[in-house]
Every structure is written in structure tokens, then in C-alpha cells.
């Protein structure tokens, strides 16, 4: 990788740091702005609070000290990875998150990678004969696909494939009734993965197709495409090496934004499918009024979005060398 790229990565990483602090400040502000007793809130309303616990937590929060000291203390804690202690689950929040992270990432990456590849290809294909009957049909279809509420498509999938046809399991990560090992275990996880991943994939696929098609249509109008054709290059080369490579730029950006959106959607989809990931954790924490975990989730999810934006920026700079030179 060229030297300028590393410099660019470092620059973007540094710019991301203030964002991270901003989020912690937002989190802190919300906890203290909300009506009610912040101490009770940090312990969580779903837990019975003894006077000793109350005093202990109050002392920990340092509510007697001036606000900016509290903020600094909170900042320090978070940077060191301490996102608080959940009295609801009786574990540090950081642990809870670590346990669920993999499940969410597995689900999201499966969904996004498959839908991105297929979506981009479909987008390229439909950009070849724009405004034809087939193209209009697929365009409308993808508009429908990305208009449907994520959690509702999940329910429909369950209704049709799990309850109706009995083909796939409706809930969970693995079957609860048996314990499986090795290859059987993998198959079991995969079969549980299909419906929730498809739910994300439906939306993502529709978005990618729409986007790639629009971007390709615009790129193929450009002058350098005429040059490529005038050189006698094969159609496939013109479309992919000259067209798609330039058309991908905005697509990559949107993929990044999409990741954030899907991550947020995980609170809905994982609830529908009882998938043991971060989204489900957030949902349970909300229902159980475990605000400490809720705030920790806010910070983690936002951090994940910042990281994914950084990755997108780097990918963008890699595809388009003009970016890292500026």
C-alpha cells in the first residue's frame, strides 16, 4: 500500500477520536438530564435497591462532586473499557457486550456480504438496459424491498418458513433441545442463521441494487467510457474495469451508512428471532430498565459505527487514489 494511504488512515483515525468523546459526553448528559434519580437509574429500575447499594453506587458516581469532574471521571472509565456494572445481570456491562458481540457480527456480516455481492451484480445488470420493462420491474421490486419494515419482514419469514412450512427454525442461535458437535453444530447454527440473515439481506440487497444501478447509469455516461470503447476493449472490460470501478465509490459510502443502519436494526431483528446478540441485549436492557447497560450499548454501537466509517473511508481512498493525495 502506498505511503500516502497510511498517512491518510492516520489522519482519519485521529479525526475519529473527538467523535468518540462526543458520544461519551452525549451519554453522560442524557443520564443526568433525564427526570428521576440518576442513582436509581444507574442501578436499574428492575432491581430492588437496598440502602447500602444506593449509598455505594451514589458514592461511586460521585454525585457530590462538580459536574465536570464527574464527566472526566466517566470519560476515564469508559476509555479504560469500564462501561459500568449491570445489577440486572450482575455482571460488568463490558462482559455482557463481549459475550454477544460475535453473534451479532456473524449475522450481520453474513447478511451484508451476500447481499452486497448479489446487489452490486444485479445493479450492474439492470443498468445495461435502463427503463426497459425488465428494468422497471426490478427497480420497483427493489423499492418495495427497502421500504418494508425490517422487523415485519422477519415476522413474515417466520410465518411462512418456520410456522407455515416448517423448514427453518424461528428462534435462537442453536436448537435448545439437543447438544450437537462438530459439523452438525455448524449446520445447526447455519439453519438458524438463514431467516434472520435473509431479513437483513432483503433490505440490503434492495438498497445495493438501486444504488449500484443509479451510480452505474451516471458513470456510463461519462467521457472516459467512450475512450475505453474507442480502444476496442471488450464490453465486459468497459463495464467492470472502467464503469464499475468508478461507480463503486458512492456505493461503498452507502454500504458504510447501511452498516450503521443495520446495526441499529439489530435491536429489532434480533428481538424477532431471539438471536443472542447485541441488539437483543439492548432490548432486554430496555425492558428491564437496566439503564447502565443501555448507555453502555449506546457507546459501543456508536463506536462500531465510527470504526465502520473509518473502514469505508480507507476503502474509498484505496479505490480512488485522488482522495489520499489531497
Amino acid at each position, binding site marked *: 500500500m502506498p505511503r500516502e494511504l497510511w498517512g491518510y488512515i492516520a489522519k482519519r483515525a485521529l479525526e475519529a477520536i473527538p467523535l468518540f468523546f462526543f458520544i461519551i459526553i452525549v451519554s453522560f448528559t442524557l443520564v443526568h438530564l433525564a427526570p428521576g434519580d440518576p442513582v436509581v437509574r444507574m442501578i436499574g429500575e428492575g432491581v430492588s435497591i437496598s440502602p447500602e447499594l444506593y449509598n455505594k453506587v451514589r458514592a461511586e458516581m460521585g454525585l457530590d462532586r462538580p459536574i465536570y469532574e464527574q464527566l472526566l471521571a466517566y470519560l476515564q472509565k469508559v476509555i479504560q473499557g469500564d462501561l459500568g456494572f449491570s445489577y440486572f445481570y450482575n455482571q460488568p456491562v463490558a462482559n455482557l457486550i463481549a459475550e454477544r458481540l460475535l453473534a451479532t457480527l456473524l449475522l450481520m456480516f453474513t447478511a451484508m456480504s451476500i447481499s452486497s455481492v448479489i446487489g452490486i451484480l444485479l445493479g450492474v445488470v439492470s443498468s445495461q438496459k435502463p427503463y426497459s420493462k425488465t428494468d422497471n420491474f426490478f427497480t420497483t421490486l427493489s423499492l418495495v424491498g427497502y421500504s418494508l419494515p425490517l422487523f415485519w419482514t422477519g415476522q413474515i419469514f417466520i410465518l411462512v418458513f418456520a410456522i407455515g412450512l416448517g423448514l427453518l427454525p424461528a428462534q435462537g442461535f442453536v436448537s435448545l433441545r439437543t447438544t450437537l458437535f462438530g459439523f452438525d453444530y455448524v449446520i445447526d447454527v447455519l439453519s438458524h442463521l438463514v431467516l434472520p440473515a435473509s431479513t437483513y439481506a432483503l433490505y440490503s440487497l434492495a438498497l445495493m441494487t438501486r444504488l449500484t444501478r443509479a451510480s452505474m447509469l451516471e458513470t456510463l455516461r461519462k467521457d*472516459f467510457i467512450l475512450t475505453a470503447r474507442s*480502444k476496442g476493449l471488450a464490453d465486459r472490460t468497459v463495464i467492470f474495469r472502467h464503469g464499475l470501478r468508478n461507480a463503486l465509490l458512492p456505493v461503498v459510502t452507502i454500504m458504510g451508512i447501511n452498516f450503521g443502519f443495520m446495526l441499529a436494526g439489530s435491536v429489532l431483528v434480533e428481538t424477532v428471532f431471539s438471536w443472542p446478540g447485541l441488539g437483543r441485549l439492548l432490548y432486554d436492557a430496555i425492558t428491564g430498565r437496566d439503564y447502565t447497560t443501555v448507555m453502555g450499548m449506546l457507546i459501543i454501537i456508536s463506536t462500531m459505527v465510527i470504526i465502520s466509517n473509518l473502514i469505508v473511508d480507507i476503502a474509498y481512498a484505496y479505490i*480512488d487514489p485522488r482522495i489520499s493525495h489531497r
Partner: protein
Amino acid sequence: MNKLLNVQDLKTYFYTSTSIVKAVDNITFEVESNETVGLVGESGCGKSTAALSVPRLIASPPGKILQGKIAFKERSLLDLPEREMKKIRGKEISMIFQDPMTFLNPVMKIGQQIQETILAHQPEDVKNVKTRVIEALEMVQIPSPRNVAEMYPYELSGGMRQRALIAMAISCKPDLVIADEPTTALDVTVQAQILTLFERLRDEFRSSLFLITHDLGVVSEICDRVYIMYAGKIVESGDVISIYEAPAHPYTTGLLKSALSIDQFKKTLVTIEGTVPDLINPPMGCRFHPRCPFVKPICKQQEPRWTQTEPEHLVSCWLYE
């Protein structure tokens, strides 16, 4: 002499949802081996369309070559299947375009863009291809060609980019190079360098150059013959000297006068009265008649036929019938 390119009765129209644009409306021209021919006209007269029609690069909706014969090296290009056309493009007929910034792929290195042309036509030459890329860059006199080959278009100046485009066009030693306004986007000093380059290449490769431009100065510098185009039709043709010394068509006279008036810093710029005609509904009869100072009644009704005013000098105008 053998005719390298012979285009007859070419009609290329564009069909939009509301109208039909008759960009090229029945023109005939030819280019022989080892000669430089110019096609001159104002913007919007259809000259670019004429140029793009030859290698069949007209975007097919909305454009269409309705009729005509395009004979290249005795082969009829309009009858060839697309995959045969691809073999000709870039290798026997190549194109140079106007604005090298937008006509080069911004995310590919220069060297790679030249390389893909060579490999597309001579895939066996893989071992030599890098050398050939450097050779092409040297041919267009780009300094430090090895470095430039590793650069991206945005890293080069306008003149260098145009040279790179030219390098791409000549990399497979084509017989015919079609250049569509190659110097328009460049400033005057660079323009002069590029024209000198064209002359050198013509002498070294013995290829022909079909130069499309609105700039009479450029034509007078390097063209052997020239066609004057107006509103989708060719109105005058001949060798450069007789056209410039004895222009026959009133449009040609007008063009020369207005160009000269700029060159000679005349106090009043001479212009041609009127505006560029609409290619959707062009004027009846001779298309220039609404702007012609010598218009006669017959000009408004019938298109004039070809008359020869001097050897190698043809004009389409009722003044000479």
C-alpha cells in the same frame, strides 16, 4: 492512390422522445493513406457525430446510422459484426478526444490504460507490453516516461494528459487516427506543441489523421485537405491552400474573415449574421440561406449540387451553377 477511408451518403440521426436530430444528413468524404484531412465547422454542426460514426461509436439508443457506406481498407464497416469492429478500434482506427481530463479513467494509472489497449489487440505480447508502453510515451515526448506510467491522470498537466491520450491512440500503430478537437482544451503554446507532435507522428508512422476542429488556424497548420461542414452537410471541400486563398462558399468566406479579424486585431470583429441552425428542423433548400449575404430565390427551395471551382476544390452553392 488507394483510399484508406471512403464515406458516402452518411446519415446519422438521433431519436429522442420528442424529436429527431439530423446531426449528419447525407455527407460524403474520404481520407487517403498518409494524409491529414480536416473537418471544420461551428459547434453543433454535426462534425463530432460524423467522426464517431466511422468507428461506429454512436450511442445506439438514441443515435442511429440510417444509411451510408463506410469503406475502410476496402472493407465495409457498416456490415461488420460488433466483435470485428472491436478488433479494428484501437488498432487500425483509433480516436483522440478533446478534454483529456474527462476522457481518461481517473482511477487507473496512465501506463495501465495504455497497456490494456495493447493487450486487447495483441494479447500474446505480454512479455513486451511494458516496453511498448514506455515506447509509446517516449514517442509522444513525455519526459520521464517510466514515472509517468505509474501516475494517475490528475497528477499530470493538461498538455501531458493530452500526450498520454495520444500515446494510447498510437500504441498499436493505427492506420487512421481520428482526432476530435484535440487541441481545443489546451492553451496556445501547448496547442502548438501538440500539432508539431501530430506532424512528427504522421511522418514516422505514415498513418492518416482525420482532424475535427472549429479552429481554422489549426487546419491551416497541418492539414493537406479540408472539408467545411455546416448544419449536418458538407458545403465545400478541397486542398487547404485553394480553400484559404480562394474560398468559394459564402460560409467559408465568412469563417475565414472572422478568424482573420481576430488575428489581425481589427477594430470591429467580423461575424456571420444569424445563428446556428436547428438540426431538428433545418432550413429548406440550402441550409445556409438564412444567413447568406448572396441568397437567391432558388437557394430557399433546392439544395445545391456539387460544382468544381478548381482542381481538387468542390463547392455546393447556387452561386457557382
